[in-house]
């Protein structure tokens, strides 16, 4: 049965890295069901008027776009003050933002870059969830961290990003264990490849082209991730907690066969 706005339990959604890619798709998906979305960003290169127009086209409530760097505690406090003055509670928190140092080789293994990658890509799950609890006196009912295939698969330049995602996934399980008694569900969406600015900045266009040719099924639209996020917060999946849910159309299980097929095709060509 499709979810309708009439039966929808979610009123307010906070999404970090919410003005582009997966974050924006999640915002649109929740907003179409009537939720007010708070979309944060650090980079600030998104065209805000286009985002407002996109929400308006679907008849969704106008989102609140806020510049807030997840790695700056003062900005987190200011954001929470801002939200508390507007909303009674935050029903859903989606920890989507990820920013990690690219690693092209061993000389890029630097402690500072590694720790900063964790600070940007894993710690906000804890920091924002606790900050919401402190400010509103209540944690979000649903907390979702957005991860990737990186922890289990080699991806170019991705060492620190993958380590950050592994950290995010582990923290999500522990956070769920600590908060499940408070009617909170913390889960991870481990996503296949979604073509975003962030993906391009991490891998570069040549690597992405190579991956698209080798394993086209690994790529999926951001809207597919957003639907999974909505599903997790629909009330129908409230028994799911502390889980890592892979959203990749099953393609990562077939990685080995894709490589074999490609090498066979190459042999036939030569």
């Amino acid at each position, binding site marked *: 049965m499709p979810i309708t706005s009439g039966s929808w339990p979610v009123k307010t959604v906070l999404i970090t890295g919410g003005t582009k890619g997966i974050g924006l798709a999640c915002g649109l998906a929740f907003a179409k069901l009537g939720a007010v979305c708070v979309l944060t960003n650090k980079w600030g290169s998104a065209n805000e008027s286009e985002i407002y127009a996109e929400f308006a086209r679907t008849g969704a409530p106008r989102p609140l776009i806020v510049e807030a760097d997840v790695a700056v505690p003062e900005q987190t406090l200011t954001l929470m003050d801002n939200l508390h003055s507007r909303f009674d509670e935050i029903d859903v928190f989606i920890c989507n933002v990820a920013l990690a140092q690219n690693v092209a080789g061993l000389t890029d293994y630097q402690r500072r870059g590694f720790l900063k990658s964790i600070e940007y890509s894993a710690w906000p799950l804890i920091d924002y969830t606790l900050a919401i609890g402190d400010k509103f006196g209540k944690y979000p009912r649903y907390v979702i961290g957005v991860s990737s295939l990186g922890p289990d698969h080699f991806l170019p330049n991705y060492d620190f990003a993958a380590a950050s995602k592994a950290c995010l996934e582990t923290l999500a399980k522990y956070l769920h264990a600590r908060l499940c008694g408070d009617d909170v569900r913390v889960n991870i969406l481990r996503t296949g490849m979604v073509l975003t*600015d962030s993906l391009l900045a991490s891998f570069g266009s040549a690597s992405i082209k190579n991956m698209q040719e080798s394993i086209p099924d690994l790529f999926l639209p951001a809207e597919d991730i957003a639907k999974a996020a909505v599903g997790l917060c629909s009330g129908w999946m409230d028994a799911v907690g502390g889980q890592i849910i892979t959203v990749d159309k099953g393609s990562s299980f077939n990685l080995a066969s894709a490589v074999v097929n490609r090498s066979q095709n190459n042999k036939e060509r030569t």
Partner: protein
Amino acid sequence: MERARIVVAVKANIESCTGIKDVDPAKSLKDYGVSSLDMVEIVSKTMRELKVKVPRSQLMKAKTLDGLIDIIRESALAAAKPL
């Protein structure tokens, strides 16, 4: 936007983000130990100060301070162009 203004802002942000002073504009930023993550921090600070928007995908093209300044300047000029 004047190039000199961008140079001052970027140099100040390189120093505040990484502690590196007196960057040679023609030398590779990577040789100074500036990582991709440092670049994001330097440019996002600069964007905020100068009220310029630079697409993140452009950052990979910047190898030197001169190159980075060119990218920021081009973004500022493109935004200033009448439609």
